[in-house]
C-alpha cells in the first residue's frame, strides 16, 4: 500500500525540482525575452511549493516504512531518527528548505523582474540533492562519490532540459503574436539549441556512469530479464524519442519559424507547440519511470 504512495511522492519531487531549477535558469539565460511570460512566476512558485511538501512527505513516508505504521512513524522520535541517521533524510530536509527558499525568492522579488538567478541557485541545491533519493546514496567508497556526483549532474542537466520545455510551453501558449514577441521566442528557441546539445551530452555521460555502477557490464546481457532492466530500457527508448523531437524542433520547426516570422507565424507556432508538449509529455513519462526505478533492486545488487 505504501509503495505507490512512495513512487508518487518521488515523482512530485522530480517534477517540482525540474521546474524550480530548470525553468528559473531558463529565464536567466533567455535574454531575448522582454520579461517572463504570463504565468512564469506562478509555475515556478507552485513547483517549489510542491517540491517542499513532497520532500517533507518523503521523510514521513520513510519514518512510517521503518516504524511499521503511520501511527508510529509520524512521531517526533521516528522522524528525528530518519533525519539524524539517514543521509537521504538529511538530503530531503535540505531539499525542502531550498525549495521553500526558492518560493520565498519568487514571492518577494519584484513582479516585473523576479530574482531568477537566486531562485535558480536554490533550485540547483534542491535538484542536486535528488542524488540521495536514488541508488546514488547507497553505494560506498570512491565509487559511491563518483556515482553521487554523476547523479547530481544528471539531475541538474535533466532539470535544465525539462524546465526549459515547461518555459517554452508557457511561451508558446502566450496570446501575444506581435512580431517582436515572435522574434524574441524565435531567438530563445535558437539560443537553446546549443545549450540543449550540451545538456544531452551531460545526460549521456552521467547516465553511462550510473549504468556501469547499477547494471554493470557483466549484467548487461541479462538486464532485460529483470523488472529494473525492462523499465530502464523503456526509459532509454523514451529518451531517444525526446531526442528525435528535440532534433526536429531544432533543425526543422525553428528554421520554419525563422522564415514565417515575416508573414503569418501561426502554423509554425502551432507545430512547435504540439512538438514541445509531446516532448514534455515524454519527459513526464521518463520521470515517472525514474521514480519507479529507484524503488527496484538494480541488476548489480543481485
Amino acid at each position, binding site marked *: 500500500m505504501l509503495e505507490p504512495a512512495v513512487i508518487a511522492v518521488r515523482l512530485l519531487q522530480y517534477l517540482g525540482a525540474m521546474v524550480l531549477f530548470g525553468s528559473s535558469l531558463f529565464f536567466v539565460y533567455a535574454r531575448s525575452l522582454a520579461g517572463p511570460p504570463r504565468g512564469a512566476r506562478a509555475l515556478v512558485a507552485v513547483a517549489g511549493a510542491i517540491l517542499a511538501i513532497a520532500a517533507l512527505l518523503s521523510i514521513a513516508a520513510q519514518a512510517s516504512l521503518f516504524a511499521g505504521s503511520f501511527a508510529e512513524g509520524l512521531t517526533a522520535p521516528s522522524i528525528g531518527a530518519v533525519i539524524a541517521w539517514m543521509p537521504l533524510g538529511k538530503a530531503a530536509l535540505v531539499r525542502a528548505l531550498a525549495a521553500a527558499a526558492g518560493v520565498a525568492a519568487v514571492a518577494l522579488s519584484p513582479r516585473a523582474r523576479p530574482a531568477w538567478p537566486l531562485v535558480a541557485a536554490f533550485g540547483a541545491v534542491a535538484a542536486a540533492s535528488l542524488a540521495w533519493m536514488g541508488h546514488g546514496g547507497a553505494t*560506498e567508497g570512491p565509487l559511491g562519490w563518483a556515482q553521487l556526483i554523476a547523479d547530481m549532474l544528471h539531475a541538474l542537466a535533466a532539470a535544465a532540459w525539462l524546465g526549459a520545455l515547461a518555459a517554452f510551453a508557457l511561451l508558446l501558449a502566450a496570446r501575444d503574436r506581435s512580431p517582436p514577441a515572435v522574434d524574441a521566442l524565435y531567438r530563445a528557441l535558437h539560443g537553446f539549441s546549443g545549450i540543449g546539445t550540451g545538456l544531452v551530452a551531460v545526460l549521456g555521460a552521467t547516465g553511462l*556512469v550510473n549504468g556501469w555502477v547499477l547494471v554493470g557490464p557483466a549484467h548487461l546481457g541479462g538486464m532485460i530479464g529483470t523488472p529494473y532492466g525492462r523499465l530502464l530500457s523503456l526509459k532509454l527508448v523514451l529518451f531517444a524519442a525526446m531526442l528525435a523531437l528535440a532534433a526536429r524542433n531544432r533543425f526543422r520547426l525553428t528554421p520554419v519559424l525563422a522564415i514565417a516570422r515575416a508573414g503569418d507565424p501561426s502554423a509554425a507556432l502551432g507545430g512547435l507547440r504540439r512538438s514541445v508538449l509531446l516532448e514534455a509529455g515524454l519527459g513526464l513519462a521518463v520521470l515517472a519511470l525514474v521514480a519507479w526505478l529507484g524503488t527496484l533492486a538494480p541488476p548489480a545488487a543481485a
Partner: protein
Amino acid sequence: MNRFLTLIAIGTAATLATASPALAHAKLVKSNPVANSTVHVGPKSITLTFDERLVPAFSKFDVTMPAHKMNVPVKTVVSPDGKRIVGTLGSRLTAGAYKVTWTAAAADDGHKMTGELSFKVG
C-alpha cells in the same frame, strides 16, 4: 587542457574498473552465538553484526524459545558505529533451543531487512 581531461578520464575509468559496487541492503555478516551452533555455557548477551550502518530507532531483535512458545526478555542497543545490535539478556540462557528474530533498518538505502537465526545451549 586536453591532458587534464585525459587524466580525469583515466582516473574515472580506473575507479570504475577496480571498485566493485557495494550496494547497501543490510546483511547479517556475523553473530555471537554463531547461527546453528551449540554453545555449552549460556551467554549473557547476543551480538549481531551487519555490513551496513543501521538506524538505531528501528533496528532490534527478539529472542524466543520456540519449543515452549516463550519470549526471552532482552534489551537491545545499537553500537555507536551503527553496525552491531547488542542484546543484553536478563540472565544467562539456560539449556534449550533459541531463535533470534531481527529487524535492521539500513541508514544508507532506506530498506528494512528482517531475518532470523537459531542456536542451542546445552
